[in-house]
């Protein structure tokens, strides 16, 4: 199959179409395999129609009309200009885009904005401001839990959410028991934070910042 020119050409069309609509892409692939038309141009994807969506972001109701392909991440960054939430990979591999939806952290790059109708979203801008830092933000500054700063908003949103997960008794891969209440130990926090990559390597300092806040909350 990789050697078949017909398929490889039509696959381009499939890939292009798949961004717009999985249903159309599947139809295109089926048609291509049946007819194997080497010269057939890909079916033009219909222009996606904007969809309305209403989000509550950092306490403020935001009504948007969005291309349905828009991720929650791009809705925040490009449409609401809340650029504190970062795009590091756009594939759920780095954690820089971490925000809290209804109090639970998610990778906002892996979620379409229109899936969040009516949701309450907290971003880094909603935690604190330079003049009034959230305790976790202040702990990151104190312990130098960042360097270039690009993964930092995601780290902080994750850190806040992780301590809440532990408080709520949500177990992790390293929890000794699934039923006992997990504790905010170094290894427990490091395990839960492992979806947030910091290439500058501030991990040791982030762990100290989190330990300070976990201790205060304990």
């Amino acid at each position, binding site marked *: 199959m990789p050697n078949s020119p017909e398929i490889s*050409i039509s696959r381009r069309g499939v890939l*292009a179409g798949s961004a*717009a609509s999985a249903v159309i892409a599947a139809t295109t692939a089926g048609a291509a395999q049946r007819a194997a038309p080497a010269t057939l141009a890909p079916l033009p994807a219909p222009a996606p129609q904007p969809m309305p969506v209403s989000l509550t972001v950092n306490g403020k109701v935001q009504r948007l009309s969005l291309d349905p392909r828009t991720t929650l991440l791009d809705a925040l960054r*490009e449409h609401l200009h809340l650029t504190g939430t970062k795009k590091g990979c756009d594939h759920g591999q780095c954690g820089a885009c971490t925000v809290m939806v209804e109090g639970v952290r998610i990778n906002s790059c892996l979620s379409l904005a229109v899936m969040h109708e009516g949701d309450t979203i907290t971003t880094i801008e909603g935690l604190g401001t330079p003049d009034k830092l959230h305790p976790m933000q202040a702990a990151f500054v104190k312990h130098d839990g*960042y360097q270039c700063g*690009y993964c930092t908003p995601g780290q902080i949103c994750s850190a806040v959410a992780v301590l809440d997960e532990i408080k709520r008794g949500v177990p992790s891969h390293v929890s000794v028991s699934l039923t006992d209440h997990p504790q905010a130990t170094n290894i427990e926090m490091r395990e839960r934070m492992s979806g947030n990559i910091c290439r500058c390597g501030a991990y040791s300092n982030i762990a100290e910042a989190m330990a300070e806040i976990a201790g205060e909350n304990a």
Partner: protein
Amino acid sequence: MKFDTPAGTNPIDRMKVVGKPLDRIDGPAKTTGMAPYAYEHHREAPNAAYGYIVGAAIAKGRISSMNVADAKAAPGVLAVVTASEAGKLGKGKYNTAKLLGGPEIDHYHQAIAVVVAETFEQARAAAGLVRVSYARATGRFDLEEALKTAPLASGSQDTPPKPDRVGDFEQAFAAAPVKLDARYTTPDHSHAMMEPFASIAAWEGDRLNVWTSNQMIDWGRTDLATTLGMPKEKIRFMSPYVGGGFGGKLFLRTDAVMAALGAKAAGRPVKVAMSRPFLMNNTTHRPATRQRIRIGANRDGKITAIAHESGSGDLPNGRPETAVTQTRLLYAGANRLTSLRLAVLDLPEGNSMRAPGEAPGMMALEVAMDEMAETLGLDPVEFRIRNDTQVDPAKPERRFSQRNLVRCLREGADRFGWTRRNAQPAQVSDGRWLVGMGVAAAFRNHVSLPSGARVRLGQDGIVTVETDMTDIGTGSYTIIAQTAAEMMGLPIERVVVKLGDSSFPVSSGSGGQFGAGSSTSGVYAACVKLRDAVAQRLGYSSADAVFDGGKVRSGNRSTDLAEAARAGELVVEDTMEWGDLDKTYQQSTFGAHFVEVGVDRFTGMIRIRRMLAVAEAGRILNPKSARSQMIGAMTMGVGGALMEELAVDKRFGFFVNHDLAGYEVPVHADIPHQEVIFLEEVDPTVSPMKAKGIGELGLCGVGAAVANAVYNATGVRVRDYPVTLDKHLDRLPAVA
């Protein structure tokens, strides 16, 4: 100002602000998401359209045809620019491959088009409609194979490509009673900084504003002007915040070029970010190496002969990975040989990544030293101490300006509990874990580059520093503020620092661990001028004016500093230039890495248990941010030791694992608490700041310390990085 004699006492020596572990001044902005990175200038470039780059799907050959009609007709598309639309483009001085390919293709994922549309989603979808036919040519993708016929190379343009020799290595090695001859390999590495390459370009007539993510503002601006064929004075190039670089952002990359071309074609500002799966093959990487090390020693552990040969590959007219540099200077020994070979490969461009040369070179050399120590029956700390040198081994009249490697090793061994290490490998266990300790020296040369700054004293008494220096996470904002505060006798709160803008004086930029020492020296020079201007305004003699506590004193007179600017802002500018003290003295930084690992006796899985580094790098300007540089480098070293490897597809010529899921870097769970100790010292031969860089020192040797610890735990020596469990699993000690 020119620095050509060792520094005497100066205002920095007061250490009221410099040398203090202050929180970074950019911390509140970074932790609240308020620091604007390259793609985030909505206010400065409103209504920007979105560019999406199309990359070549072959590694070498030609584009035979390109159909962009469907892309152009797709919803929202404003423009599609390919090499034929772009016309003739230049190639930047620091670029090996062209930044817009076609019809010739030089490497996989070389940019061949940019599609500009109203929205990101439209641009991405339309980019998928560009159809390209290629005539694929045979490429060279196998380093092992290509090195068989590769010529010798030189690490710098000033020296001819030949082996570097001292004494007679071959004879001394043949005569040595104890010998090691071993080969090591390091794979291609990706910088994998968290912020993808991104730029916004906005034309104002024939002037171009570019917000980008770049470590070296003046290099980037100059190369963009060369590429676009326009005067550099017409380009304003800005990187106030850089989301990590590690050498990957030393150079102009295609995001800036595509944004500029796209903006011209679309007639409005255009923003372009590289997608993560695209950037690893499109941009540069640290080249793989094949290294051979031979060491000959007497039975008392004195090295008599040492040879280090390394081969790497790059595109035509590329550069070798200078993995043998440290071996010329790190240990004593009368007979020495180092050489480099460079093969031509058609893989993506190889170039600098954090501690180029030393990072992979030390990964090999410091394992070789561990192996040699074991053969000699010597403790590896002691073996290194016995071969310390206080002079350049090739030029004994040339001393190191400072060299306390022995103290780093001794203090580290003491702190780490090194005496508890069992010299016999595979003897210590802790439950299911085999436990081992490893050590390695750290070494990296100090470099200074010319660096300029402008300082202003405002009527409000605030001192503002402007320089095109960048802060790539290194702490430049803070140490520059500390420098200006110390020089002008102010608390750090009274200093404002503006960085990363080509409208400011040209600085050293960030790279090669030259940034901290060079850029603060440039600020020092400008502040000396400002002090003179202040003294003159106040009618003081600048020779005896004391700047302290927001006041200027001379004899029994004292005036508020702000008073000097009452009649109008004072603005001065200067550049620090460098004499030849670096020729008189060998200026280097040193350290020692200690690592303890656990290896699961059943699965072979390796976990880091403890890490300690002791470092000496002259004056430490801010122990808090300096420590972060060290632990960050130690973390990257763990990556290089245990997991990082770009997998080469030798058939089609590209890096297969080109995203952050496939290219593994350390995560929180991999890194325990890390300890760092700085030796207290100053080096007056390097600059008035008496400070050297540490950003790369921390990476040099740490990978070997990890590998040596794994060996101590298992008794299985792995010489091919990364040390992954599959490479030792079948040879681990038998389980009961």
